[in-house]
């Protein structure tokens, strides 16, 4: 069921060999702007780690500080146990795939890929062999003599990969690697990238602004906002157990009910929500003060729709405002008595078992307490 379970994330990896990257209290300022603000982060060996965030969230700056293309004003960057805070890019055991690919326009594909090995002063025969190998791995063996401008966007991307991977870096950094590809090519490249990481076995750190891309590829995600990391976890954790409204909202649709916490015990919270008209129960990670203002979050696909009063942890009454059939599911907008609009996603089976509801029908929406989160931020 869980597509993320087969991804290489071993919980013990962090403690076993130490993290491959450690970011300790790193701050980076550009003039008056603080791009990265006291960030702490550990990335395990062999992870497909994703830095996710909107523009200006500091994700690219953080990646560039791991690459050695920017240097922190404060804090420490440790790569594979070595302090690399001020080491220049050419001295780091990492390679980067640039968003624009940055293939040298005056060099052929082969020479682009060989560039890094020549800088390492490897023997000629070894360079030839490793370049051939890298190009073959990406199905680009027939394009060695071409110049970058003679390649399509997808081919350029493969060459950029080959060039970064041929040096056998400890970490591959990817700055929006798929942004320049069209949608169809991008989806294929996502799958290829995950497979490629499994084959080469090294750590990938990717920057993206696309939450779907991050969810479908990463073993762990760090969501960034205003230079800070808001939450780190597996895609499932971020989706199901967001720590704040911002995280809940960033990952797909979320129904949010404002309320006041009345009771919290054993990981469950009860909140008085005027918008819902009833008290709502949901999972509550943090110990919160009674009476604190909280938000209860429920994902649209966790909502159940029924015509009669259901027996459930949470149930609200409302009238269907609209139903849109979107192929795999029905998108249903329900107006509650308070006037709040709630989104529900119904699978075809749910839709039928609810008796094919239509706009104007009075219905109940219900969900178990395990499907809701009580958020204090």
């Amino acid at each position, binding site marked *: 069921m869980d597509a993320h379970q087969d991804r290489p994330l071993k919980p013990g990896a962090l403690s076993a060999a130490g993290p491959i990257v450690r970011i300790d209290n790193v701050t980076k300022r550009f003039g008056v702007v603080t791009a990265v603000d006291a960030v702490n982060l550990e990335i395990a060996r062999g992870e497909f780690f994703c830095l996710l965030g909107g523009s200006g969230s500091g994700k690219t700056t953080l990646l560039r500080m791991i*690459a*050695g*293309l920017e240097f922190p004003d404060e804090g420490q960057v440790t790569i594979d146990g070595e302090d690399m805070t001020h080491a*220049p*890019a*050419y001295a780091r055991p*990492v*390679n*980067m795939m*640039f968003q*624009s690919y*940055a*293939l*040298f*326009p*005056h060099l052929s594909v082969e020479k682009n890929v060989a*560039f*890094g090995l020549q*800088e*390492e002063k490897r023997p000629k025969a070894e360079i030839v062999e490793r370049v051939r190998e890298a190009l073959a791995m990406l199905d680009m063996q027939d394009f060695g003599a071409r*110049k970058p401008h003679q390649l399509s966007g997808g081919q350029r991307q493969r060459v950029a990969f080959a*060039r*970064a991977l041929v*040096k056998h870096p400890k970490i591959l950094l990817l700055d929006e690697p798929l942004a320049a590809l069209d949608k169809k090519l991008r989806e294929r490249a996502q799958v290829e990238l995950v497979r490629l990481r499994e084959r080469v076995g090294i750590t990938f750190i990717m920057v993206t602004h696309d939450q779907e891309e991050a969810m479908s590829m990463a073993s762990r995600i760090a969501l960034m906002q205003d230079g800070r990391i808001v939450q780190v976890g597996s895609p499932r954790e971020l989706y199901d157990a967001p720590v704040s409204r911002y995280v809940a909202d960033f990952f797909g649709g979320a129904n949010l009910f404002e309320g006041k916490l009345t009771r919290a015990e054993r990981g469950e919270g009860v909140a008085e929500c005027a918008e819902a008209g009833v008290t709502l129960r949901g999972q509550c990670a943090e110990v919160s003060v009674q009476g604190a203002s909280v938000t209860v979050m429920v994902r649209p696909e966790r909502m159940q729709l029924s015509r009669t009063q259901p027996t459930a942890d949470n149930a609200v009454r409302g009238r269907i405002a609209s139903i849109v059939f979107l192929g795999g599911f029905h998108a249903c907008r329900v107006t509650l008595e308070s006037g709040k609009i709630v989104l529900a996603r119904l699978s075809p089976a749910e839709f039928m078992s609810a008796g094919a509801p239509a706009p104007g029908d009075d219905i109940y929406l219900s969900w178990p307490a395990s499907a809701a989160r009580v958020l204090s931020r």
Partner: protein
Amino acid sequence: MKAHSQRAGSFVIGLPAAWLFLFVLLPLLIVLAISLVEMRTGSPPYTPFFTWESGLPRMHAQGGNYALLFSDRLYIDAFLSSIRIAATSAFIALFIAYPMAYAISRAKESVRTPLLMLVVLPFWTSFLIRVYAWTGILNSNGLINNALLNFGLIKTPLPLLHTEFAVHLGIVYSYLPFMVLPIFAVLEKLDWTYLEAAADLGARPLKAFLRVTLPLSLPGVFAGFLLVFIPALGEFIVPELLGGPDTLMIGRVLWTEFFSNRDWPLASALAVGLLVLVLVPATLMFRVMRKGEAA
């Protein structure tokens, strides 16, 4: 309708074509014709290219002037020393201009335009006056010698003016902007990410410059080199004002043949020789640039 637009089209192309024919090709042909006849005293000071004999035109072309160009050491030496002086000057200008262009292209955007203005500023003064001003600086009682004498660094004035050194100096000074501008144009467009990629792949800054920046800026270097080399080859003012009596350059020889010896045919032959000399590197440049575009 179609005929009308066709006529308009041929007019648009025809006008510059007629201009080029009248003011470039025709004079060139006249010079070529004069180079093939003999000198005489009178007006014009050369024998006619063709005469009418019993109703038919008869050509009087002869290659004597060209034969002289190749047989008299003076002309060959003038060509060779012109090439040498123009080439060394262009190289010196390149080594001065490249760092300048690099620094300007990497300067903050707000100071880039003022810096470029400073490079172009000397053009606001007449070329002749600027070169003449150097005589005042290089003179035996000029700025440099006086300063050195006053500081007690030398006892007798250095011979600076009327030397080949002064000619190089004058050419480099005069044509430096022509070297700076094309190199700047290429460097300014250069994507910084290439250098980051080079560093990421393990290249130290100097290696990154040699393997990435320099090759990518070669089109600008080529253009700048020829923009300095070609006019320097036929330069007259600089060797005349700053050069010594033994500084041999085609421009000067040409002037002497034309105005002192009134040997128009030989001067024309020299001019044609100079043109051929310029055409070789120019075609080479266009070939290289076309290849760069195609690649």
